């Protein structure tokens, strides 16, 4: 059970889903997440599950809607352009209060972009993504092990709130191999019954799953109910990690792959006597506002580093509320920033540069 095995991120995420009772997967080919559906196509039949390669991402997300409606633990994965295609379905899933897990192994955009890692889907991920007033919890792993752990938790969060949950990786997390262990083993029969599911109405009144509310007051009612869930998520689901922030004069904020690079930069900075700390948001929605707010009270500045041209930095600024300067540094298009670049920038900013 606690045996460590070397696995590629995409395959490890797939196995993590299976280990917590995910038995349905619907996908469509797109790089750099292809190993995930391929793994599912091999493994799911072994555990009486179902894998289907749909005719498009749109079909796949709607199959997810169906399987989620039928009460199953269900997952889909894609990469940026494919996730854009799924947004309509995700909005309907949120509106219909259906739990599922969606994995985005992000690549550079916009448009077709490239196939190298990026974090430029942050806005899409953290602002709902599709139409309407909704959010999905967003979990951002920085390692293959964390991708496993967060994928497992994603299913629980999805079921708890009856809401889609997004696992936001990137091409690096998906393609990289690291040792992992699977700390849970849950089969579908161990999961609580979903009384709202449309899985056959024998012995009860038929259930209805939809997001249509033609009467404005009824639709408002639904939206207020959804908002209550998002508020509850903000109270209970915020996750982050801090590193050396107690005495820090300078705070680095980064998530996912970039957080690992930032860690190297922070270690290098400490070696040359700069007091640098790190705040790593693990949930991007809900965003760890409080810890950043607190840090902003005594930090000389905050530097947000992303593989985009500045998306999460907006949430960092909203959290810091002007109490200290919030700078941004980013590479994009699949270019991964180097620790040295970040260190140089830290030194420059600490020396009064802008």
């Amino acid at each position, binding site marked *: 059970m606690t045996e460590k095995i070397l696995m590629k991120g995409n395959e490890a995420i797939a196995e993590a889903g299976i280990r917590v009772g995910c038995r349905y997967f619907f996908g469509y080919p797109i790089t750099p997440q292809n190993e995930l559906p391929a793994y599912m*196509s091999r493994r799911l039949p072994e555990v009486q599950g179902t894998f289907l*390669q749909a005719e498009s991402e749109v079909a796949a997300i709607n199959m997810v809607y169906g399987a989620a409606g039928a009460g199953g633990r269900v997952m889909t994965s894609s990469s940026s352009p494919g996730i854009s295609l799924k947004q309509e379905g995700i909005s309907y899933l949120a509106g219909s209060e259906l739990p599922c897990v969606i994995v985005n192994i992000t690549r550079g955009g916009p448009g077709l972009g490239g196939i190298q890692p990026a974090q430029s889907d942050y806005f899409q991920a953290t602002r709902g993504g599709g139409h309407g007033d909704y959010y999905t919890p967003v979990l951002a792993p920085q390692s293959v092990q964390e991708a496993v752990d967060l994928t497992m938790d994603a299913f629980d969060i999805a079921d708890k709130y009856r809401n889609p949950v997004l696992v936001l990786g990137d091409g690096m997390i998906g393609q990289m191999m690291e040792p992992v262990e699977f700390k849970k083993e849950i089969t579908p029969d161990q999961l609580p019954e979903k009384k709202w599911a449309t899985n056959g109405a024998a012995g009860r009144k038929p259930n209805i799953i939809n997001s249509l509310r033609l009467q404005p007051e009824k639709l408002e009612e639904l939206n207020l109910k959804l908002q209550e869930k998002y508020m509850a998520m903000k109270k209970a689901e915020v996750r982050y990690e801090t590193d050396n922030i107690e005495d820090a004069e300078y705070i680095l904020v980064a998530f996912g792959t970039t957080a690992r690079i930032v860690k190297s930069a922070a270690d290098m900075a400490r070696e040359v006597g700069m007091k640098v700390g790190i705040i790593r948001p693990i949930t991007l929605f809900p965003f760890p506002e409080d810890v950043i707010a607190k840090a902003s009270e005594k930090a000389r500045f905050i530097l947000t580093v992303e593989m985009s041209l500045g998306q999460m930095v907006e949430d960092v600024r909203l959290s810091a509320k002007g109490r200290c300067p919030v700078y941004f540094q980013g590479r994009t298009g699949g270019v991964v920033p180097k620790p040295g670049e970040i260190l140089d920038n830290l030194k420059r900013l600490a020396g009064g540069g802008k």
Partner: protein
Amino acid sequence: MAVEDYLRMEKLPHIWCPGCGHGIVMGAITRAIEKNGWDKNKVVVVSGIGCSSRAPGYMDFDTLHTLHGRAIPFAAGVKMANPELHVIVITGDGDGAAIGGNHLIHACRRNVGLNIVLLNNSIYGMTSGQYSPLTPEGALATTSPYGNIDPAFDLCNLAMGSGANFVARGTAYHIHKLIDYISQGFENPGFSFIEAISQCPTNFGRRNKQRTGLEMMKWQRDNSVDFKKAQTMSAEELKGKFITGIFCDREDKEYTEKYRQLVEQFQEGSN
């Protein structure tokens, strides 16, 4: 010479794998254009995403590389905006028959004057070998490790049933016939659909006991049956074979022409 005149020589060599049939089919398209004597400056080539869709990158015309599956709607936009143009779509079995399948049947139904060449290599090659709607039953792919259980489309039947004017199927092996089919199809003013059987040794063949491009082309040679001959054969005899040839060459009115007539009545009314 079709090759020098119609290819962006500076972009070569192409990125297709050794043994791939796509270069042969792209060559056939350029030769058909040459044969038809089209003005190079009146040709627009559109593609979506996939191995087939790399072709327009090498073709020295105005080219559009668009979204996965959406080449046909883009091309319809080009044609509706400028019906004078020869609009060619190069697509594949994933791009054209899976994610773009809906667009394909509706363009057939409208009979928009587009020239579609669908390169069928039975697999998603670019993403490393997932099954497509044209992967044969039983075949191995990265997402069908126990053998594909999905039945394949007969795209020529689909195109004919949906209203395309011209429908044909050729192979990379029967290159001269393929050039003829493309040339003839391109001359039909309505919607033309040409399925070109191509080979992918890298992501289809090596998982399915056809390790080289040559072996796969021999398979094309040995398993294709001409349309006319097929009509004399029983279902049993046709098992495992595929039919090549021109299935229809109709003269139904082309869509932009119909639309021009619709607009014309208003122009007359305003005079």
